[in-house]
């Protein structure tokens, strides 16, 4: 399946791009992360500490074990600091 992946804040800066489209068979966000980490060092660096990351699935906050079935958009970013 085809999924849009978005990166924000320092995750975007470490990976070096704001979004990309991937073709994946990953069943969960965690499996998608493993696929990305295996690609290149910059992904390995960005995803080194998952406790420092948050994930949104189709624009709702989610956990790393969230399923990807039917999902169109996954976003990775640090804890939010608005307000």
């Amino acid at each position: 399946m085809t999924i849009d992946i978005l990166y924000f804040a320092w995750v975007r800066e470490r990976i070096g791009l704001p979004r990309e489209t991937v073709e994946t068979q990953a069943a969960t966000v965690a499996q998608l992360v493993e696929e990305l980490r295996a690609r290149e060092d910059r992904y390995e660096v960005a995803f080194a500490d998952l406790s420092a990351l948050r994930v949104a699935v189709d624009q709702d906050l989610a956990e790393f074990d969230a399923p990807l079935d039917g999902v169109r958009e996954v976003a990775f970013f640090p804890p939010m600091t608005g307000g």
Partner: protein
Amino acid sequence: MAVRVQSDPFDLGAEANAFVAAQAGGMGAIVTFTGVVRDVAGGLQAMEIEHYPGMTERALHKIEDEARDRWQLGDVLIVHRHGRMQADEMIMMVATAARHRADAFEAAQFLMDYLKSRAPFWKKEHTGQGADWVAARDEDEDALKRW
């Protein structure tokens, strides 16, 4: 009900007056919160706020809906800027209207606590020494536990 995400500055005074004028007769209590760019250490050249278009509006509406489930409210307003701003500029505001002041105060605090940690905004501070993403504070995550 209004949620606005914008790069332009907003006029707190004009927003507050229009918010009060729009309330139905029974809403005797109006609370506003305004967040201003702080230059705590001195030397802040700019504050940059990144957000997640689409999810931001969605998250703010969810937070507002949650507040409406918990308190008896009239209107609710959330305005949040993104992009670059200087020290002393206003970053964001919320306003709540209710019959009773406890509802207006608590709902405004709730909106702020959730907005801080659950709406996809990220702050970056630019100084003479470079630029750093602002770290989330444990106190902000802890603040959610009271609700």
